């Protein structure tokens, strides 16, 4: 069994994982998946055992449309890209299990997602702000956080 089909088989074994049909080349990804948050650690383990790295982790504020946050994980291997984007939809205000035990890089990526968008990660060893100041009470990348003065002016008809 090749490495790629082994990965596909392992991913197929995860009940809540839904894989999209062949992704567009423009997406930059070879696989697009959505998974329940309870299974994200399992997904992370599958990728780690297949030799993949956690290339990127970030979150999207989708509260306006879906009352939920999206946490986006991107796994890739070294060499010819086999990039998988895994999405976890989490109701606003609720936590996602941390991948910090599986990937060293998740530690900082999750801290950044928490700092910027307020997503909490259960089981993270040190979930504190990383880029903004200590003790801040805002999450700047949330859509309802501050609007640039110029944009506000425009909205007011000025």
């Amino acid at each position, binding site marked *: 069994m090749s490495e790629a089909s082994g990965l596909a088989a392992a991913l197929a074994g995860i009940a809540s994982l839904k894989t999209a049909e062949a992704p*567009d080349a*423009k*997406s*930059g*990804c070879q696989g697009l998946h959505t998974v329940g948050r309870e299974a994200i650690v399992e997904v992370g383990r599958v990728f*780690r055992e297949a*030799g*993949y*790295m*956690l*290339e*990127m982790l*970030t979150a*999207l*504020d989708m509260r306006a449309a879906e009352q939920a946050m999206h946490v*986006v994980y*991107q796994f890739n291997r*070294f*060499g*010819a*890209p086999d*990039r998988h*984007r895994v999405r976890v939809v989490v109701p606003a205000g609720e936590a996602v299990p941390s991948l910090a035990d599986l*990937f*060293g*890089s998740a*530690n*900082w990526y999750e801290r950044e997602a928490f700092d*910027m968008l307020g997503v909490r990660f259960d089981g993270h060893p040190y979930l504190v*702000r*990383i*880029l*903004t*100041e200590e003790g801040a009470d805002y999450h*700047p*990348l949330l*859509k309802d*956080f501050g*609007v*640039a003065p*110029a*944009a506000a002016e425009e909205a007011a008809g000025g």
Partner: protein
Amino acid sequence: MAELIQIASDEDRDTFYLNMGPQHPSTHGVLRLRLHLKGERILSAEPIIGYSHRAHEKMAENRNYIQFLPNPSRVDYLSGMIYSIGYCQAIEKAIGLEVPERAEYIRVICNELNRISSHLLWFGTFLLDLGGVTPFLYCFDDREKILDLLDLVSGSRLTYCYGRFGGLVNDVTDDFLEGTARFCTAFRERLREYDRLVTQNVIFRNRTIGVGVMRPELAQQFGITGPCLRAMGMARDVRRDEPYGIYDRFEFDIPTRTASDCFDRYLVRIAEMEQSMRIVEQALAKLPDGPIMAKKIPRKIAPAKGEYYFAVESARGHFGMFIVSDGSEIPYRIHLRTPSFANLSTMRTVLPGTLLADTVSILGSIDIVLPEIDR
């Protein structure tokens, strides 16, 4: 001052915490390291970042794609050209815009010149950190020539905004082409001079060989990319693995080393400058005539609703842009995956067990640029 140095606990009075930075000259910008020390030996290290956070990702959500053009080069001011052109390429791919041949070649020339200038600055300051002042002056002399060349075509010395969606803002002049060719000839000789000046230097070797070894498993754990990864023996480079622009048309090697210590990271970067020059010379030889902007550029730059990811190889590694579009002219979200963020996060694992004095070599050898980490 009370906070700066404190005794850990009563039981362990010979260990203490030390803040290195954020104003320490060897932290290249504003990085703070919270070190737990026992004598000279590091027990644990925690890099503290965010001092130059300028909210580039938030800015992206408050302006349209065109207005965001000047931002990417300010994210990493040492490889600004690569970032700025990379952003153009990301948007061009998302909206399906073809770039004229001539512009593609000029982009490659400018990118590679920028890579050399970034490596030169790294080389100079790395040696400066280790106490060698002379190479720094030589490097800045050469780097100045590149900055002048890029200034000639783009109008800026560091934070370039040379790319446009569909091409470039200016065509290159003959001065630029001749100057670049002259630089390449002269720089080959200079590289040999640097090699004689530095590589065999016994102090330099003692401070770098076997110092700051990154174990191979860290590559996968932390997603290390760029010269740090190549010094681990892995010939991985975005230009080769998923060629963007016209990088698949050039012959170049991916230099690797295997010991993964500071010395190997130095050798990899030196060899990369040589390879970049090979690419520049090939591009100069093949540079076609023609327009530098695509003919039909949409009036509205608005990628179709969806998510896009595009990666380029910056001087420090894999720079990825994750662009989420809601179909409007204003990005819904742009996340910048920067290489040094991942590379620096390994320090929590690499530094413990090393000596305080080696911290300077190790930090220097991973080539961090703090604004790129903080974004």
